[in-house]
């Protein structure tokens, strides 16, 4: 028997093909790239803001939870339908992709795949810098909701740094606009930035105005090899304090290097303790000089080898190996727990040390890579979901990783968001009152708590990470 709200829903979304009801469809919208499988009661695929508004009004009236979802690439559980209700799939909202060359902005619909925006912008000679690894899969709406990052965060910041304005449907079904199309905009509270990274707990994003910048003229990539992890840490600080701002600065530990070489040999030295991949972009003359400087600095702090790649092909090769890290480490064991704890970059060597201790203490396959330049590390634990004992150790290890990050003055998340996985640790980072203020904001926006409930804020009694049933 259909419930009253389910019958009403069919009057709201007239094209009933866009309301999914069968078990296979419901289960297909019950997961993302993190953990857990749930079953919503309905999946709805709206095409425009009006349909979203109608769905929200209906849900608000009946107090039905609504979970906005893009392509489900989230690593922290953002779109998981924890409490049944409606999954609101925004992937079909793709009508708009308008580039305003004069004002260097783009207006886009939330369902558009981020790389499509990047390509369109590139064609016009501009640059949209945020580049999460999932950019060729994930939607811009999801990127905004999770405030996604990527390797270029060091120089260019994260998604939020490029959002000028939003059109949002509130949990009560009202359509509002925040921010605008101007670079400077200080009118009132900055609701735009409040909504960026709010993980779908405050509203449904239905349109985004993005800031674009001029395209850098050229780039070089540099591979540096270290025999001592601490030296690589020093190289990061020395390069950055020398006045050079690389566009990316990626680190891989020895476990990653070995995994990549076992998977598809890229010519990385397997006896190295760490390698740094540095990318510089800008005016060709400027980066030529900077590349020499980086070479010198890295050698001074003990780099065993420095290779500078200028040509497109050579650079591509260097970065392809970096891209292989994920698949390569997945060969170690099938279940991959990818974290994004971030520390002030001066603390990177110390964080590495803590991670190594955690690795030994819990006897786990823990490897580290990440965006070293901005302190955003990706400790990855490779385990097997079917091994209950191992997963228990993973839970404890992950908790300890979070604690280490916070103790070193860092944060729980650099780019993946909080979702369901990190909510138990929020108070540790923000303090009781800090978290309570966030909660008050949430309550003011969403009085019936229907917007993506169960995310960011810990549920009663939820004090630790749970990966096992």
């Amino acid at each position, binding site marked *: 028997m259909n419930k009253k709200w389910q019958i009403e829903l069919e009057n709201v979304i007239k094209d009933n093909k866009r309301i*999914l009801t*069968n*078990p*296979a*469809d419901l*289960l*297909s*919208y019950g*997961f*993302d*790239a993190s953990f857990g*499988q749930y079953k919503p009661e309905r*999946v709805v*695929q709206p095409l425009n803001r009006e349909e979203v508004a109608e769905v929200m009004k209906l849900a608000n009236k009946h107090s039905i939870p609504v979970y906005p979802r893009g*392509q*489900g*690439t989230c690593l922290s559980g953002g779109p998981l339908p924890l409490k049944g209700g409606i999954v609101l*799939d925004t*992937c*079909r909202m793709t009508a708009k992709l308008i580039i305003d060359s004069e004002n260097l902005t783009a207006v886009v619909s939330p369902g558009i*795949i981020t790389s499509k925006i990047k390509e369109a912008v590139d064609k016009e000679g501009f640059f949209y810098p945020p580049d999460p690894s*999932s950019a*060729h*899969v*994930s939607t811009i709406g999801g990127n905004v909701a999770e405030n996604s990052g990527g390797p270029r965060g060091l120089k260019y910041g994260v998604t939020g740094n490029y959002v000028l304005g939003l059109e949002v449907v509130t949990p009560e079904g009202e359509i509002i606009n925040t921010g605008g199309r101007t670079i400077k905009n200080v009118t009132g509270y900055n609701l735009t930035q409040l909504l960026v990274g709010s993980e779908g707990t405050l509203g449904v994003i239905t349109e985004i105005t993005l800031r674009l910048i001029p395209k850098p003229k050229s780039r070089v990539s540099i591979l540096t090899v270290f025999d001592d992890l601490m030296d690589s840490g020093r190289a990061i600080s020395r390069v950055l304090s020398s006045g050079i701002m690389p566009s990316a600065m990626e680190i891989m530990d020895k476990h990653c290097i070995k995994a990549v070489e076992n998977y598809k040999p890229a010519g990385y030295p397997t006896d190295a303790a760490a390698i740094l991949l540095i990318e510089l972009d800008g005016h060709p003359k400027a980066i030529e000089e900077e590349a020499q400087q980086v070479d010198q600095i890295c050698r001074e702090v003990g780099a065993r080898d420095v290779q500078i790649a200028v040509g497109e092909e050579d650079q591509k090769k260097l970065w392809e190996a970096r891209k292989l890290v*994920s*698949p390569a480490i*997945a*060969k170690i064991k*099938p*279940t*991959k727990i990818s974290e994004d704890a971030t520390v002030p970059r001066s603390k990177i060597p110390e964080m590495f040390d803590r991670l190594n201790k955690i690795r030994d203490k819990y006897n786990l396959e823990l490897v580290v890579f990440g965006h070293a330049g901005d302190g955003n590390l990706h400790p990855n634990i490779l385990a*097997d*979901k*079917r091994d209950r004992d191992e997963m228990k150790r993973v839970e404890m290890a992950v908790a300890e990783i979070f604690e280490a990050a916070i103790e070193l003055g860092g944060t729980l998340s650099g780019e993946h968001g909080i979702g369901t996985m990190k909510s138990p640790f929020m108070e540790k980072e923000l303090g009781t009152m800090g978290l309570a203020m966030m909660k008050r904001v949430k309550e003011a926006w969403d009085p019936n708590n229907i917007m993506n409930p169960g995310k960011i804020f810990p549920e009663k009694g939820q004090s630790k990470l749970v990966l096992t049933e």
Partner: protein
Amino acid sequence: MKGQSLKDLQQKIGYKYTFDCVQCAYCLPVCPTYETMGIETHSPRGRINLVKMVAEGQMEIEDLREPIEKCLGCQACVTACPTDTQYGRILEGAKEVLNDWEKKSISKKITEKIVIGKLFPSSSGMDMIGHIMWGYEKTGLQKLARKTGLTSLAPMRLGKFEQVLPSPVAPKERKSRKNYYPAKGKVQLTVALFTGCIMDSMFFTTNQNTIKLLNHAGANVYIPEEQTCCGALHSHSGEANEARKLAIRNIKAFEEYNIDYVVNNAGGCGAQLSEYEHLLSEEPEWKARAHLFVQNSKDISTVLWDLGGIQLLEAKEEVVTYQPSCHLTHVQKVTREPKALIETIPGVIFREMKDEQKCCGSAGIYNIVNYEESMDILDVKMDHMKPTKANTIVTTNPGCLLQMKMGIKREGLEDSVRAVHLVDFLAERLLEN
């Protein structure tokens, strides 16, 4: 499903492979059915998750049917997958389980029994199709049937496809094929041709042209008579046992000859031949023999390319685009050679179409059993083909060839565009000695 039976199910359905999927979604943008149907249920990640749900007893087997049956099996997701998840194995397992489970509807059962069980594995059956097709055209019955609309009454839209089938070859000509054709000039290789069932009945000329090209390139060619259907359609419909029997017959047939390679000219058949080792992995007696067979199985394009190509005539200028067979691209991983061969032809202007590696929607008998879905996928393909302004679409698989012909017809481009198998395209320009 409880206890032991759930364990059996997990074994059969390839549950263990599902754990390799980290649900990153990288397969979504390359999946043709996700593109046209727009729901996660019809994406590789979605399907893998559903297989897992069934294996864990969280969903009924029957609920898996539609998502699995609507999969083209093109395996583009396997190429895109960063963790190397064996989607093909998962799909195969799911099909086998669904096949076991199914209480088939009568018409489907009959069609499958006749088409798959009897016709394809038997050379006389295939010959019969060839003969009937020939007689059908020659007697004027075809014209009559088309005129009266009789063809639209054929089951499962077969009528639609009947209109794009190639002209059949007379029985006499078919009968006159020899078992051995020696190389012209210096002998570089000795090979045997895998003729395939559909290829040999409906695309007999293509097989003859394959032999001609091989001879010209310096290869002796044997045509083993004992060979049979590759078994792809059986595997894809969950009839693994039947597929195993056919594999064994083929291995035996080719082992008789002292050859360098078994050459095939159909992407789908070639992919199935390359699966023989996996298919027979549980049979100790056959595993090693299958390994050798797989090692020596080659697509015509790689053999011709390795032999240094063939001397071709300069012909009038022609704009050509290429629709790769999914099974050639994603299973056999042959991508370079067919294009390289096309590009070396004097007078050819080659233009790659957008997303060329995406399935055209043919996929075995997918376009017959899932007609509407297949046409949606074909429409996307044609939208990518048109901007190339090609006069010729070259394909490497009979299914793709018919589907492209269908696409040309749907778009009303019959006067300006043609679809042709790579082999026939090359043969047109062969420099006869």
